[in-house]
């Protein structure tokens, strides 16, 4: 047991730091590269990205592009053969679910099967990449990484009414094929680099995705935890390095010192949450201006009467709120003369107050004033329909000013000062910052460093993710951790070749999809005819002698069920909608941190608190119960059956065939046809209604492995 008393707040350093590692000495007293071992300095992930030569292969006919040459060379070394190409039916289902998250339509399958042109497959990929469905699918991968949610988490789990702007920004960025470098820059420092761009304003919403507790009086502690969270997630996402360990001590396995961690974190040290950042496109929109002015004019009288009542109540609430705060916060709020750090805390505190007062100040209005207040509110409401609906505002961050608050190692404000800096193992130079009028320029510098094309991690990390999004597993399987505790690359040369190519092609995401998806590697069948030997040599298919089978993730499953039942609502963008009320794609379904959607949660949606690089794929009886007995699933089967029964005068066999084509993109075999017919006839013999029998059959199809797994 710990033989010391509880430590009062604010925590002076992290006392709960890992006792196990407490004895490790700090390794970098001064910032020089000679403090790293030779082994660390030569670790593959920290080396410059190479331009490997495309290898020669014995089998010269299989490779379609350099990817195949790298993969085949590896296979040949191990005495393995690639699998033959998958059937066209499998291919179109595979690529549709991959790029759009839903299966192909029957017409799309027919068109592809009858297209005898030599580039039919390539044109299919192009068509899919041009559709906005692509952005809706691929944005989901990114949102997992940045732990996007529509609510705060913690007790009140308040909705974030503007969060969807960031989500839509991500979807649009994928659809526009925004260069990845620009995508990164906009998210980390959009306000500093592109102050007039609406995209950039939405993008910096990235820095607002942390869980937030609006009822936490110990603000210094909450703020420090927030910066930790931003640094951890940014390290995971942009560098593919898990740096969390270095929060409390030098990283045990990777050359990241505790100081390096706080240097990296210090790039973000000047930020402060900002609300109601106005989007140009909306402000300059004439209808908006006119409407808003008119509304303001109409309601000016009412607002004038409401203002004094509200001010009084807010003051009372403020006094109540202030009393709850610890002494140091009261002092900060009572003075005008604040250091940048105090200013940050004060802003954080005032944000809390405004959240509270919006919710609670009304309770301080009493007696006659209350009657008056309610009358005025009612009156104001009658003008609501004159008000412009979309206020065009985003919630993001800005720097507190041109001077950054001081940053300290271990956030110990009595401890050692630290300045923003790159990871020493990658770059020992001290960064310089170009100050803006009200901004430190720190994040702009971080964004530049991440995307200058020289950073050995940025390019490798993102091409590895793209690879993983296609194959289910990355070339480095631990796609958020390229360090020693992660996995080593199975095809290191290929990884470098892709990263180099990607940077050279101006970080072009769609070009990467194209080259990967048109490779022979990607087009392989999942089940070769003869695999006995391959299974002995490489049972787990590390070297890709076949295409891995993948299970649909929760969104693919929900969207595909709605797609097959003919109910999917394809409208795009806008505020999140609750799951029960919508047939829209899952990416638009409201994700509340405290109330995860049941059907989707059963199929391994992440928890939206941590960066999630790879979805789990568990198999549980709860999943079976959800799909078998859950009302949502049964309703889909009903709609699906109605769709199959729609046309008059069609034989049962033809209907069965149609159901198969809807669900699996193929016709049933004679054996399958027979067993479906037997099922229907048996139901008939037991006096089930015709519709009931078909609902049951369709429900079974939606529950099959063939539906859930992608070949």
């Amino acid at each position, binding site marked *: *047991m710990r033989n010391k*008393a*509880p430590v*009062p*707040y604010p925590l002076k350093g992290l006392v*709960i*730091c890992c*006792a*196990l590692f407490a004895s490790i000495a700090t390794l970098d007293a001064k910032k020089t590269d000679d403090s790293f071992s030779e082994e660390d300095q030569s670790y593959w992930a920290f080396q410059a990205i190479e331009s490997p030569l495309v290898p020669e292969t014995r089998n010269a006919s299989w490779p379609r592009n350099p990817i195949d040459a790298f993969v085949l060379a590896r296979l040949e070394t191990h005495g393995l053969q690639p699998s033959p190409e998958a059937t066209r039916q499998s291919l179109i289902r595979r690529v549709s679910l991959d790029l759009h998250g839903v299966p192909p339509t029957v017409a799309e399958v027919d068109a592809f099967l009858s297209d005898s042109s030599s580039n039919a497959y390539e044109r299919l990929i192009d068509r899919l990449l041009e559709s906005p469905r692509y952005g809706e699918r691929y944005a989901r991968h990114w949102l997992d990484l940045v732990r996007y949610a529509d609510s705060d988490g*913690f*007790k009140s789990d308040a909705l974030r009414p503007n969060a969807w702007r960031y989500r839509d920004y991500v979807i649009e960025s994928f659809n526009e094929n925004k260069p990845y470098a620009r995508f990164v820059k906009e998210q980390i420092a959009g306000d500093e680099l592109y102050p007039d761009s609406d995209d950039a304003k939405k993008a910096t919403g990235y820095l607002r995705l942390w*869980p937030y507790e609006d009822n*936490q*009086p110990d603000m210094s502690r909450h703020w420090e935890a927030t910066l930790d969270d931003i640094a951890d997630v940014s390290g995971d996402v942009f560098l593919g*390095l*898990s740096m969390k360990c270095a929060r409390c001590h030098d990283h045990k396995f990777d050359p990241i010192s505790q100081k390096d961690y706080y240097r990296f974190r210090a790039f973000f040290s000047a930020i402060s949450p900002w609300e109601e950042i106005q989007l140009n496109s909306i402000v300059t929109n004439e209808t908006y201006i006119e409407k808003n002015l008119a509304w303001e004019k109409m309601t000016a009288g009412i607002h004038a009467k409401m203002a004094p009542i509200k001010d009084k109540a807010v003051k009372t609430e403020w006094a109540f709120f202030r009393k*709850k705060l*610890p002494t140091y916060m009261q002092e900060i709020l009572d003075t005008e003369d604040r250091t940048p750090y105090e200013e940050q805390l004060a802003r954080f505190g005032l944000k809390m107050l405004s959240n509270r007062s919006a919710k609670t100040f009304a309770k301080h209005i009493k007696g006659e004033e209350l009657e008056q207040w309610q009358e005025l509110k009612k009156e104001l409401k009658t003008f609501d329909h004159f008000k412009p609906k979309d206020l065009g505002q985003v919630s993001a961050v800005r720097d507190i000013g041109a001077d950054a608050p001081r940053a300290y190692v271990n956030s110990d404000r009595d401890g050692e000062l630290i300045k923003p800096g790159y990871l020493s193992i990658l770059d020992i130079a001290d960064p310089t910052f170009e100050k803006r009028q009200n901004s430190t320029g720190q994040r702009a510098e971080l964004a530049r460093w991440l995307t200058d094309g020289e950073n050995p991690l940025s390019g490798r990390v993102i091409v590895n993710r793209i690879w993983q999004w296609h194959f289910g*597993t990355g070339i480095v*399987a*631990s*796609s*958020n951790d390229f360090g020693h*505790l*992660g996995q080593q690359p199975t095809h290191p040369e290929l990884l470098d070749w892709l990263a180099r190519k990607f940077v050279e092609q101006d970080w072009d995401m769609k070009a990467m999809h194209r080259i990967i998806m048109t490779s022979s590697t990607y087009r392989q069948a*999942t*089940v070769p005819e003869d695999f006995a030997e391959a*299974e002995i040599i490489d049972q*787990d*298919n590390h070297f890709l002698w076949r295409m891995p*089978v993948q*299970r649909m993730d929760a969104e693919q499953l929900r969207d595909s069920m709605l797609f097959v039942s003919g109910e999917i609502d394809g409208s795009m963008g806008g505020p999140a909608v609750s799951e029960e009320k919508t047939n829209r794609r899952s990416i638009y379904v409201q994700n509340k*941190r405290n*109330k995860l959607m*049941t059907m989707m*949660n059963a199929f391994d949606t992440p*928890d939206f*608190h941590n960066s999630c690089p*790879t979805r*789990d794929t*568990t*198999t*549980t*009886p*709860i*999943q*079976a*119960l959800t799909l*078998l*007995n859950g009302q949502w699933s049964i309703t889909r089967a009903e709609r699906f059956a109605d769709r199959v029964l729609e046309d008059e005068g069609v034989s049962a066999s033809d209907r069965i065939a149609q159901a198969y084509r809807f669900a699996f993109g193929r016709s049933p075999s004679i*054996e*399958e046809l027979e*067993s479906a017919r037997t099922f229907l006839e*048996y139901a008939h013999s*037991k006096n089930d209604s015709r519709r009931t029998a078909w609902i*049951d059959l369709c429900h*079974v199809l939606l529950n*099959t*492995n063939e539906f859930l*797994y992608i070949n």
Partner: protein
Amino acid sequence: MDRLVSCFIKYKRIPVYQLNPRSDKMNYHVRAAVSRRDFLMKAGGGIAGVALAGILGQDEARAASNPLLAKVSRHKATAKNVIFLFMEGGPSHIDMFDPKPLLNELEGQRLPSSFKEPVTAMGEQGSPLMGSPRTWNQHGESGLWISDWCPNIAKHADDLAVIRSCWADGLNHVGSVCQMNTGSTLGGRPSLGAWSVYGLGTANQNLPGYVVLVDNNSMPLGGVRNWGTGFMPATYQGTLFRNGPTPIPNLYPPEGLSDRRQRGKLDLLKEMNRRHAKQNTFEDELEARIDSYELAYRMQAEAPEAVDLSLEDDATKTLYGMDGKSTAAFGSQCLQARRLVERGVRFVQVYSGTGSKWDSHADHETKASKMCESMDLPVAGLLEDLKRRGLLEDTLVVWGGEFGRTPMSEKGDGRDHNPYGFTMWMAGGGVKGGQVIGSTDELGLWAVEEPCHVHDLHASILYAMGLDHMNLEFKSGGRLERPTLNSGEVVHKLFTG
């Protein structure tokens, strides 16, 4: 392949089960292993480290095929199951288990300057002290002090190990409830129950390994994350049993869907899945999914019996206070908890006052006495019933809230949150009863002697289950995560006295 292997040899700290180089996230549907080596490469979770290789017997192949099958402990467990009685909102230790005569003497005064001033949730650090009007008596052979708010629990004084020196990091409910469940005030980590099921598997495959029970229709503050798995797979998460006749969601087919139809659908499904599996011979996951439907079907048969309290006799129901107006709700959940551990559910959490009903910022006397009344008899009934059935030896009962309450008053007659010093107790499951561990200061504000952090509590609960909190590891995002964030020590006194 050489490169892969060499990296493993270099970093010996990586647990053997994580060595499958293609699965950073572990593989949860691994096919039955054919050899020991194969098993070590494929085992889907459980106790980390090479030690595993030495302690596994012939069941290893079986264990490898299902991450939820019961596994072997490292040291000898003193408890098979845990029932965690969670007084949500914060019970007042200084009115129940930690008498403070000085508090009554100083009633109405400010906290003396010799006491360190705390930060409190509602800013009540400067408010006058409020005495405790309780009558205190010593109980049992051990002479434990217990107040008149817990007359029935007092009868089991000799079974209780009362830790008076607990402390936690949170100030507010949601962070504190989260920490008491997951070790961290911030969301995103697996709960203690999830770690237990991850480490030990479950003994009954037809019921969830970790069940959460609530005594009303509210949700515990913070919701699902309190029994969630954070970065671990959903396999290990708690299942919330809803209050009412159908506690497990989707357990039954919708009304009007006969068993004949359900069986018919399952048979066709099986046939189709078998045909599909034949064409995809090396995907064991497909087999696992076929099994999961059969398991779901068996759950439909077994679970209703497990949750059917009408099968209990009247005497038992009375024991739990199910015939009393104030005690019926929590009593029925306590009885439910016993039925579940009896059937092999590993970790059962029962919330009393779900939705922070123990939170007594104002009118503390009325509120807290009402909560105590609703809780005292059912908890005593549970201890008695477990003992009678010989289940107490194997079942660790943990009692407490997310924090305690302040000696300072709030709004004249309430008490604020106190995470700096509060009481929890344990009974059964190898715990030596009739003892007090640690102490708070003379006003019950700060833990002073043998302070016991939430991490120490968690380490001790895991220890009782045969798990070592520093060796129970799960790799997430390149970091080896442990249940108590690499902190905490086992309170051995709990078990040795």
